[in-house]
């Protein structure tokens, strides 16, 4: 093995306007190693990925491949033959076939012409070699999220790159698929590929990475082997303040006892919802949520968890069944009616539904209450919005340059906080939150979940928390597990046993606890 690392970044420095995104970052990955890169939102992970992929040129420092300086930024082909990146958001063109996507932007040999036969043959070869088993002629729009990711990895392998960057590859995968992804990554690492694995899921980092590097405020504050490192040490390196962390994390979990409210009336009643939504079917789901109660709903990716959330929130219609708030039926499939009935909605995909990117923080955070803020004539001053948004954006500690900063410019965690603010600001009696912590750093996660459960308990709102992230559910009073669109099990006594929850989501074993 050569002594030079496959990829090495030396003293990388990058500024965006007034933001100093990276300050002299040194990082290197050896062949046959998997390096985890963790850090809170805004720590500079995405910038580092862009620089290592050759999309952005650093202001200072150098990227080296096998000890030689990297090609100039923007020389796409030259970079692609050395390093391949699987981005957080799918870069697959759905209308094209698997083979076309695998060879997207890179030729199949002779000149600029497309050699269809070679393209399909080589795609099939790559798939066979790595045991992926997807036909090269399938249209990508017919693939599952997991299969799309395989296409992206295959694309990376097709370029012959010896280094692979995986930017939050498991964000949209269910647990079985995550395990299979890990098997593939391990296989790649064993064959001598250098892998950089970026994730918010620390347990994943411990599982597949030999080393981990922690970015904080644009600096690498820790690089260490994962063996011998504890999760708490890792978290405190990410957050920076060791003293504050334990209290912050432990406190909310103790609350549920107080929440066994005396109120018996259900605010939210869901009666046998049935739908054949492409996001996951529902086959007659019924449940009730009381005032001040936090109910988690979990299950595998296509089990109907997010469909249930969307139908209750009125973002999607249903074939039969009813949703009632305070005994009143809510018109199905009408988000505006649901909101007027008091149902707040934190959508699954915040980029698609959570905010209007070029409108300001205050405007987005008050978008649900413009009717309340405005007078009889419907007039409303920008200062009113700022004033109305301020308490929530402060409570959720939204970091922005001001109430007018476009939300699109904020980091992912802060965008999600704005989406949560937009929901809480209209004082909902029911909150539907679908995977509210996806792609959010650890500290923001705790803060967001605390804000949601805290709001529910103090205001007597019903919280329906639909998430496939089991750690989101620890603060819930009850957890309902869906399997193939039906309520499979219900856990009523926190703390919930992780193993039992996982078993239930797989539909394997009925737990000891049931409703």
């Amino acid at each position, binding site marked *: 093995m050569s002594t030079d690392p496959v990829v090495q970044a030396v003293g990388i420095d990058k500024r965006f306007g007034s933001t100093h995104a990276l300050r002299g970052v040194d990082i290197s990955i050896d062949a046959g190693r998997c390096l985890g890169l963790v850090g809170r939102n805004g720590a500079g992970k995405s910038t580092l990925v862009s620089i290592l992929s050759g999309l952005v040129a650093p202001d200072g420092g150098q990227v080296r491949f096998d000890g030689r300086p990297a090609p100039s930024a923007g020389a796409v082909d030259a970079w692609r033959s050395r390093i391949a990146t699987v981005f957080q958001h799918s870069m697959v063109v759905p209308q094209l076939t698997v083979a076309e996507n695998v060879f997207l932007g890179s030729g199949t040999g002779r000149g600029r012409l497309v050699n269809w036969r070679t393209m399909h043959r080589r795609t099939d070869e790559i798939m066979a070699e790595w045991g992926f088993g997807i036909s090269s002629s399938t249209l990508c729009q017919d693939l599952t999220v997991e299969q799309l990711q395989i296409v992206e990895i295959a694309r990376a392998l097709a370029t012959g790159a010896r280094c692979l960057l995986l930017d939050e590859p498991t964000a949209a995968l269910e647990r079985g698929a995550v395990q299979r992804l890990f098997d593939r990554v391990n296989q790649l690492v064993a064959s001598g590929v250098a892998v950089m694995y970026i994730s918010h899921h620390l347990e994943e980092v411990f599982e597949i990475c030999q080393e981990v590097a922690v970015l904080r405020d644009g600096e690498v504050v820790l690089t260490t082997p994962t063996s011998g490192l504890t999760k708490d040490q890792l978290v405190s390196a990410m957050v920076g303040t060791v003293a504050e962390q334990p209290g*912050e994390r432990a406190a909310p979990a103790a609350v549920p006892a107080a929440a066994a409210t005396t109120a018996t009336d259900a605010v939210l009643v869901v009666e046998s919802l049935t739908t054949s939504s492409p996001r996951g079917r529902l086959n007659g789901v019924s449940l009730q949520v009381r005032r001040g109660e936090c109910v988690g709903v979990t299950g595998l990716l296509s089990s109907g968890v997010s469909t249930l959330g969307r139908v209750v929130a009125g973002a999607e219609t249903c074939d039969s069944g009813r949703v009632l708030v305070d005994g009143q039926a809510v018109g199905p499939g009408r988000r505006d009616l649901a909101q007027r009935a008091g149902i707040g909605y934190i959508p699954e995909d915040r980029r698609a539904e*959570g905010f*209007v990117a070029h409108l300001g923080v205050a405007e987005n955070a008050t*978008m649900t209450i413009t009717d309340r803020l405005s007078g009889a004539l419907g007039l409303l001053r920008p200062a009113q919005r700022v004033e109305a948004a301020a*308490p929530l954006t402060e409570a959720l500690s939204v970091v922005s340059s001001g109430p007018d900063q476009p939300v699109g410019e904020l980091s992912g965690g802060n965008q999600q906080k704005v989406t949560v603010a937009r929901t809480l600001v209209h004082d909902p009696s029911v909150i539907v939150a679908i995977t509210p912590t996806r792609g959010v750093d650890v500290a*923001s996660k705790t803060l967001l979940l605390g804000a949601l459960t805290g709001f529910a308990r103090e205001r007597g709102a019903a919280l329906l928390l639909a998430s496939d992230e089991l750690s989101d559910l620890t603060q819930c009073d009850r957890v309902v597990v869906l399997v193939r669109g039906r309520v499979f099990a219900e856990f009523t006594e926190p703390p919930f046993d992780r193993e039992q929850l996982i078993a239930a989501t797989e539909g394997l074993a009925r737990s000891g606890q049931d409703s």
Partner: protein
Amino acid sequence: MTPGTTPRTTPAPVPAPAVEPAPPPLSTSPPAARRTRAVGVLRQAALVPVLLLLLVVGSLVSSAFLTESNLAGVGQQVSALGVVVVGESLILLIGGMDLSLESTYGLAPMVAAWLILPVSTYGDGIMLNPYLGLLVLLLVGAAIGLVNGLLIVKGRLNGFIVTLGMTIVLAGMQSGVVKAQSLYALPEAFSYLGSAYVAGVPVSLIVAVAVFVLVGLFLRYHRTGRAIYAVGGNPAAARAAGIKVDRVRIGVYVAGSVLAAVGGLMEAGRVSAVTAQQGYGEGIIFSVFAAAVIGGVSLKGGRGNMVGAATGVILLGLVQNILDLANVSNYWIEAIDGVVILFALVLARVIGGEATAE
């Protein structure tokens, strides 16, 4: 994030206005916020230097340029276009587009005039009261907008194709209903808006300015105006925030067509006739889009404002006027006009930055 914020204290006070003496700043770095605002102002004013330049060029080209009567004439000429540009800008803001505004601009005054005039001047002879005729004009505009809106929003048809088809249908009706004749001898009530002057200022200009100001204020300070930006910026997010997206969209198509009808009325008054050519035959939709886009209204929706749209309109009007005064050959005037518009687009892009990129 502020250190020391614990999750337990987060529960969010729902707005209790006037608790604080002043709105507490969300800002961690006020200078940055001020810079953002300054850039916004700069963008809005991006075309002002160009307008000043045109004024200088105009005064060099002809001594008649900087006279009250010439500028009033320009004002009257661009008023009709300006009102249509307001309509199109609203539609662009919700992320739509409407090519048929140019046909509405011709058909609505045509139908109204046809109902008002006697058979001898190619009317249909029912001799409708001119004021009712104006009502009909508005209703024709609203009806066209409603059909467009329903087909596009509820029927989920492509806006480009729907309004392209509509353009041709409406233009055909415009010539069909009067057998391609022009209608002259318009009653005073009908031509007043486009031809009258108050204290040396064309009434159409006053009305057009009022339309720009009112729509501008509406967009900035009315909840529906803000909803238009939200719908255009991200319809799914607007829907998730409880905004009645379909209703806003259809409403904007209706408003746009009504404004196009009013613009058509101004034009008919200015030239004292409704011709079969008005609108579609003149191809005004190019100027309408050009003015809006030069003024920074994004074709992708959600971005733009009335200040920009107004500067776009004034710029086109001045260019047209200077070319007229410079005695440019009629055969070449369109080519030069087109070049100037393209040049203005490039310039607006350079000065305005990314916001005007699309």
